[in-house]
């Protein structure tokens, strides 16, 4: 792993998608992201995962918030719901509760997830709703043209922190682990194949899976989360990492200077749908 991946540009990317023959999941709308944006890898990764898992388009709903990342649903030939800034999880929750047969993929940026939408994450996680939440974490607000985000590093200069950011960044992995997410992983947009595999694993998990994807915003961040920096620091979780050990996962997640990629934690426990069925049984007095 750790192969060095150059930024991918739109035209070349499309060539690749077409050549690969699995554009089936992709809609006629071409991504509107900046050339080189890490998000192209996510479009590729989800396409791969859906094909691998052989899920019919009609049974997939991609739900997103607002932001560059949240443009995601438009690029797929599945059902999609581009909702409001920060509200991807509650809308996705409603979709999944309404029809448990659907495969629900929730998508958003770091601001969408951890700033405005931060209050919803613990509840989606603890309820163990069977869906996959992909957070494209570029440590910045892309769509609004480069302000600081809850995962920006201290000292980061943006248009809203011209004298440097002084707020300590959140640790999304530790948050999700303590919220009770039943699957927590981290991937990197620069490692496309691993990313596709991680999305596939996340989607195969029965329960709430949270995948943080480190991704450069090539337009508004020239100093911090660049491909060059991330390539230097990311590494895989040790082979012997025990995904059933919450404390080991916490320990690994606390190493923020050298982000480790892979599955941090995995737990099999009843999903919200199963819990609701059990409630219905108790309520009917048949249990």
């Amino acid at each position, binding site marked *: 792993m750790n192969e060095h991946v150059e930024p991918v540009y739109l035209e070349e990317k499309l060539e690749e998608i077409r050549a690969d023959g699995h554009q089936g999941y992709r*809609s*006629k*709308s071409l991504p509107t992201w900046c050339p080189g944006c890490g998000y192209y890898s996510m479009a590729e990764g989800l396409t791969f995962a859906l094909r691998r898992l052989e899920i019919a*388009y*009609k*049974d*997939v*709903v*991609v*739900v997103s918030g*607002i932001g560059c990342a949240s443009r995601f*649903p*438009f690029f*797929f*030939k*599945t*059902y*999609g*719901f*581009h*909702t*409001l800034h920060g*509200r991807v*999880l*509650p*809308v*996705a*929750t*409603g*979709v*999944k*509760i*309404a*029809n448990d*047969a*659907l495969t629900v993929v929730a998508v958003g940026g770091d601001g969408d997830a951890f700033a405005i939408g931060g*209050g*919803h994450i*613990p*509840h989606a996680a603890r309820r163990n709703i069977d869906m996959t939440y992909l957070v494209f974490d570029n440590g910045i607000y892309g769509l609004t043209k480069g302000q600081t985000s809850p995962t920006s590093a201290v000292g980061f200069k943006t248009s809203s922190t011209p004298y440097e950011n002084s707020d300590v960044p959140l640790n999304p992995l530790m948050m999700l682990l303590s919220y009770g997410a039943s699957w927590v992983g981290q991937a990197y947009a620069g490692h496309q194949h691993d990313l596709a595999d991680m999305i596939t694993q996340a989607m195969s998990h029965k329960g709430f899976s949270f995948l943080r994807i480190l991704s450069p915003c090539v337009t508004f961040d020239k100093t911090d989360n660049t491909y060059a920096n991330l390539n230097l620091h990311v590494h895989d979780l040790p082979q012997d990492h025990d995904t059933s050990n919450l404390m080991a996962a916490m320990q690994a997640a606390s190493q923020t200077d050298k982000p480790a990629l892979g599955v941090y934690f995995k737990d099999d426990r009843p999903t*919200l749908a199963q819990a*609701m069925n059990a*409630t*219905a049984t*108790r*309520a*009917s*007095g048949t249990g």
Partner: protein
Amino acid sequence: MMNRTGTDIQIAICGSAGDGTIASGDILKRAAALMGFNVIAFDVYPPEIRGFGKCISRVRISSQQSYSLKQNSDVLISLNDTHAIPHVGEVRDFGAVIYDDNLIANVPEGGHISGHIHPAQIPYGFSIRQISEQATNSARSRNIVILGYLAELFDLPREHFRKIIRDKFATKPRAVTDDNIKAFNAGLLAGSGVFKLDDVVVQKVDAKGNGADAEMMTGNGAVARGFMEAGIQCYFGYPITPATSIMERLAVEMPPAGGKFLQTEDEISAIAAAIGAGYAGTRAATATSGPGLALMAEMLGLGVMAEVPVVVVVSQRGGPSTGLPTKTEQSDLNLAVFGGSGDAQRIVLAPTNVEGCYRCAGRAFEIAETYQTPVIVLIDLYLSNRYETVIPSAHKQFAAKPRVPLAPNGDGAFKRFELTENNISPRAIPGEEGLMHTVTGLEHNELGRPNDAIHMDMNTKRHEKLKPAVNFPGLTVSKRFGDEGKVKVGILGWGSTFGEILETMYEAQAEGISCAAMKVVMLSPLPVESIAAFFADCDEILVPEVNYEGQFANIVCGALGKPVSRLNQTNGAPMAVADILAEVRRLSGKKPKTGQSDTFTEAAL
């Protein structure tokens, strides 16, 4: 109220928390409903959860349809004199005050209610506590003793009381029921031989009375009932007074019926999940009060923009901000009709009584589905918590028709937002073959793709599609009552205040004032034509509302370009018939009447 025939009595039971005041009122209203009377009842609890705050249960029992509580009660029963004394003035002349006459020696000067009864009122003192203790070895059944006394005083059928008492204590040990029946019988004995209120007629209810079919429901209970009959599939809610009992009812009833119920982390999440579930093709709803609706405003806009059917019940309380959580008000009309960013027209229904809560909640899903948009059912604390007898429909009138999916359109060309003749577009839901599409809160073209250039066309579509809603089949959108043709004074109203408006209208007619009233149930889109026709018939228009600015009057004046007279009060209570009547008299050119017209102010609620 004078022009009524048959039975029309209002009984107020007042005590301290722990005296069983509300339980006593509950048995009284259920027994009266079982007898076949129309019942309207409203309980007032102390704002504090613990302690010995004041409780009042008011029950109006009538043989004809009534529309609100009466201004003055016919009977006040005191289970606690300190709390009941301020309410003595609420009893009409020649009405009764029932109290415990055994305690005079023990209370400080002025502390006994007998010293506060007006000369024109009739005192009925008897030893309530002693009788309770003799019958059951406990003072705790005082609240049942008084029911026996009442049954005797008005010669109400005893068996109906006994049945309700047995039902109420069915889950308790047998001895509890027995004791309560004993207490009731002891009350009967105490009441036998007391002289009756000679101006109260208790009509024998004929055998074909509503008794068996009629159910006592609160407005919130009626909303939950309407939802269940409509086959609600998903409910998401966050607790808030006075809407909470809707979610509590559904939490009990939905799971065994196969519905999905979830208490969410906040109101944003509740409406978001309901919109997600509506988008996924289910009947989904939430319920809240003003503060929650304020949080939901952005999401309602998404529902309008993405054209998702969803039902939101809003029970108003005093505002702004946390405001007066336990007091009624009609001040969230602006928020319900206009709240949110952009031109986000939605459908708002405001039922005027408990039966209306049941119907509007039941029909709301079908309306939301027809117009593919959020529907708000706007009620208030006064409607949420008051009891009325409702006869639910025997047949499933609110049930959804089975969905017929559209023909597949495989290549991503499905026009979810197609501009059609009637502005309603074909709708597909996730899981349906060959109709995949993405919906968005961004302005979008017919395919649902972000597009700014089409904004005017899409805005037009979203507004125009709602216009026919004022003719929605089988839905009372507005209705006129009272004198036909030209009248001197027309009273225009909405929501719970309409009960007091109707009572006022009957009083005004009885005084010889030519008077009509119109209720408007659909507040958005507004049934402008019928309101205009009403205006054309009335010399004067009065719009009474329990809000400060006259929010409905503003909307109506804006829509019709005509001035109206306003009557606005925000004292935490429903508007008093006497106050509306005074305005009607003034507008009709009649001199104000003097006499008994105490306002039903705070003391009442």
